[in-house]
């Protein structure tokens, strides 16, 4: 474990703790930049998908990991971002560079407004309340057919930035780089949030509402702001998802997606940006992995590929159960342990990380 000798206040404020850490992330960034030259078009598409999911996961992570509120309504905000982005392009003829941030803003404002009456709810009640949002938005997409084209769905135009046409199939590299750039901006915003007063007030309402309040934090407002920032980022992911999918309708953003998002951040590791990326990789790559495994299995046994309905959900559920049983801190928690093991070798103790991890501890006070 490296000891950082702090010589200025900036040591705590800066984005990276030390030069080596900066070096590692620079290497990772270089790898990300080189990916289009290393991967096939298909694999690069999957990588783009992982990044889009990572944005969505970061959105939800801000809410659940930072502010301690649960939500099963985030598919709705993916949908709001997605439809807002495409409809503004199709109906109003606005360019992507304007519709994209606006889509995030619309999803964010919608989230904050919906959250206001819900901030009194805690834990499981809040989760149930937010399920309603997902279902309502799904129904609205069907009902508002003249606007949303209902169950038939919409086909988004390719992204156009200053005449540069970006499309998943004809220009996969450009779409990947665009997504990478947006992902990095979201990571930066997330990091900035964590190191500024607003982020700390999120942590405050997560861990003890009553003392947050005594410190002068307006609990209801802070919860709404957390919802707004969270759903805003989720809306951005939704907008990208629409362009990536090529066609979408009400079912693209159903309750299953909400659940998958929540599971992803739990599996990835609550409360960390790394966790959002790990979780995103699992959710985005699992269907392909299962399909691949099934084909292999089918080849081994003979008799072509076997299709078992509900297989994906079952495997996902199994992974989740295993994590909750054996690694409640998620993939990121496991990674931190392995890293510490090597850094301290041979002095690592087994119960080094034993401390209770209890989010959603909200119904305490009175």
């Amino acid at each position, binding site marked *: 474990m490296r000891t950082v000798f702090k010589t200025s206040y900036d040591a705590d404020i800066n984005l990276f703790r030390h030069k080596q850490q900066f070096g590692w992330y620079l290497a990772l960034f270089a790898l990300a930049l080189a990916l289009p030259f290393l991967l096939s078009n298909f694999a690069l598409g999957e990588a783009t998908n992982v990044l889009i999911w990572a944005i969505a996961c970061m959105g939800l992570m801000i809410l659940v990991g930072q502010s301690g509120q649960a939500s099963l309504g985030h598919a709705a905000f993916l949908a709001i971002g997605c439809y807002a982005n495409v409809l503004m392009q199709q109906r109003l003829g606005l360019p992507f560079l304007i519709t994209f941030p606006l889509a995030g803003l619309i999803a964010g404002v919608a989230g904050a407004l919906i959250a206001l009456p819900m901030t009194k709810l805690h834990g499981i009640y809040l989760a149930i309340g937010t399920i309603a949002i997902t279902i309502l938005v799904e129904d609205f997409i069907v009902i508002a057919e003249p606007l949303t084209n209902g169950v038939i769905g919409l086909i988004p135009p390719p992204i156009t930035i200053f005449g540069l046409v970006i499309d998943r199939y004809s220009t996969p590299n450009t779409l990947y780089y665009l997504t990478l750039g947006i992902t990095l901006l979201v990571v930066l915003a997330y990091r900035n949030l964590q190191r500024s007063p607003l*982020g700390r007030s999120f942590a405050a309402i*997560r861990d003890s509402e009553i003392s947050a309040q005594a410190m002068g934090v307006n609990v209801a407002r802070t919860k709404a702001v957390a919802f707004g920032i969270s759903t805003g980022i989720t809306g951005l992911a939704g907008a990208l998802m629409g362009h990536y999918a090529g066609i979408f309708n009400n079912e693209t953003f159903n309750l299953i997606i909400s659940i998958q998002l929540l599971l992803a951040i739990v599996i990835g590791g609550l409360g960390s940006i790394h966790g959002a990326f790990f979780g995103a990789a699992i959710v985005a790559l699992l269907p392909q992995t299962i399909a691949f495994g099934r084909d292999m299995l089918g080849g081994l046994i003979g008799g072509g590929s076997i299709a078992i309905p509900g297989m994906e959900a079952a495997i996902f559920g199994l992974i989740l159960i295993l994590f909750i049983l054996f690694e409640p801190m998620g993939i990121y928690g496991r990674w931190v342990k392995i890293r510490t093991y090597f850094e301290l070798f041979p002095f690592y103790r087994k119960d080094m990380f034993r401390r209770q991890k209890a989010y959603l501890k909200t119904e305490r006070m009175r």
Partner: protein
Amino acid sequence: MSLLELDNVTLRFGGLTAVSQVSFSVEEGEVFALVGPNGAGKSTIFNLISRIYDPAEGDIRFDGKSILDRKPHEIARLGIARTFQNIELFDQATVMQNLLVGRHRHRHSRMWSELLFTPFVRAEERRHREAIEKVIDFLDLQAYRDKYIAGLPYGVRKVVEMGRALAIEPRLLLLDEPASGLSVEETQDVAFWVEDIKKQMGVTVLMVEHDMHLVASVSDRVLALADGKMLAMGTPHEVQNHPKVVEAYIGVADEHEKVLA
């Protein structure tokens, strides 16, 4: 004018009158202690000042103005800080982050500038950290700066909670049993700190405490309560020897003996 005035304050929980017609005032610059047996209503008085409960009757004034029209989160901005009897820290955050939440009252930046982390936000952060560093030095918390609360021993948590309240830079500090569960040495530290908080920082202290030794050594005035009612008020010496107080405590002591026997 007194800094804090409680004027005939009554609070009922259903049939139970937890605080009954309590009146007292805390003068600027003094250490005022509330004592009394368990269930006397001491913490409830703190919660009334924090605006967690609305009194059924009476008025609470800070700096001459009623605070009954204030929301709970507006109390810190007035300059009233508090600790909790059962430590209420932000467990999944470091000591530093906990103390920084205490600076919330001094936040001038807005959401958008924080998301962009503008130079203004950075300058503010430096200012907050400078202020926090003073608290850390004052309470000798250097060794725990970057430790998570969840892994800290009880005594340290108590100190961190006091530090978080001091980070508010309050005019009035409410301490709910600052020495409960602490060792003799740690209790002595608390006594020194309370003295310094009063003399060096010029902060008025309203304190609930069971340790009569600590109360006698640091407080200027004491109010004894039992069953929500005022028993006696005066110097520590006067209150300790007041017949009603002796009776209330001996009553409790008798019960304890009965339980033990």
